[in-house]
């Protein structure tokens, strides 16, 4: 096994996501096509909170695993945690604001009993990967595999929230914020992985976990549709919603 060049490694990381993008999962398609009710979106908020709510916790495990010589990576992780929690409005509070506009409550959103088993699996995978893997591998999984997908998902879904579902900009601020912030977080994630996966084995492990992460996010998004939406949209064909996982 040989060490990939920077360009080839980046192309392999991008290729590991391709065909597994969560924006193509059935729940995302139904969202973009204006087919969801506010009840469906409330269930999304009740699940999404338990995936992204601990994001600073995941990053903190990665931070602790990064050596003190990896200053650039540690600075990024700390900045990312800071932005999630205290730099302005806490991101989960924006998510709860959206959920409340959909008709659910802070109490229901924060209650872990309201997530489905697939969401619980995604959360557990995030914790385990952050805690157990080399910091470059964990960054690949969580930042490249998961977080870097966010702009492409929300750039499609945010305008629909305003135009078709009738939310105000304030109610949907969670999405507007992440369209831009995760562009930068995603790119910084790539740079950290490219700089710090310095052996063929680490590179291959990064590529594998990016694929795993993309599949986890796809499965999570698809499960939202299967659990909460399919029964209400019986017979609706979602063009472009291709299952990535056999």
């Amino acid at each position: 096994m040989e060490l990939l060049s920077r360009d080839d490694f980046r192309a392999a990381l991008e290729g590991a996501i391709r065909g597994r993008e969560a924006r193509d999962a059935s729940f995302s398609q139904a969202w973009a096509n204006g087919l969801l009710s506010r009840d469906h979106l409330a269930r999304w908020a009740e699940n999404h909170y338990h995936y992204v709510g601990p994001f600073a916790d995941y990053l903190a495990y990665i931070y602790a695993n990064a050596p003190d010589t990896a200053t650039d990576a540690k600075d990024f992780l700390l900045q990312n945690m800071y932005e999630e929690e205290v730099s302005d409005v806490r991101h989960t509070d924006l998510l709860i604001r959206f959920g409340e506009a959909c008709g659910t409550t802070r109490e229901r959103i924060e209650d872990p009993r309201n997530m489905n088993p697939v969401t619980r699996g995604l959360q557990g995978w995030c914790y385990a990967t952050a805690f157990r893997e080399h910091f470059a591998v964990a960054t690949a999984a969580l930042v490249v595999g998961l977080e870097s997908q966010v702009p492409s998902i929300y750039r499609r879904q945010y305008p629909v929230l305003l135009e078709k579902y009738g939310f105000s900009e304030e109610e949907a601020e969670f999405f507007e914020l992440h369209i831009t912030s995760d562009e930068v977080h995603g790119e910084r994630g790539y740079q950290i992985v490219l700089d710090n996966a310095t052996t063929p084995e680490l590179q291959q492990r990064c590529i594998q976990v990016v694929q795993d992460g993309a599949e986890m996010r796809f499965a999570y998004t698809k499960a939202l549709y299967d659990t909460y939406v399919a029964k209400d949209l019986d017979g609706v064909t979602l063009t472009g919603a291709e299952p990535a996982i056999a």
Partner: protein
Amino acid sequence: VSTIEFRTSGRTVEFADGDEVNLLRTSIRYDCGVPYKCASGNCGTDRVLVERGAEHLSRIRPKERDRLGDDVDRGYRLACQTYASGDVTLSWASGSVPENERLRGRWLAGDVAAEQERRTGAE
């Protein structure tokens, strides 16, 4: 193809017609040197002057109005908040970065409140 010219660093990046690319992400990826700290439009470190091609940029986001004020009308944008869909030329000051007064005020207010609470508790 379209291009983003980062005049201060002398770098130029090409992207495919029909694409929309985030200015700060592009700068980071291709090492074009736009200064930045955060990614949320809060710090204002990535303030750039659009010298050419403003019509090829995404709409001005609320964070930019909040952070830049009237400078938005003088052609300034926040690179992290802005997407390009055609040729643009950017420059930026290489000196010190002004603090975000709104955030500074909020934190100072928090510090004052916490101090008052501590003193009240001690009495």
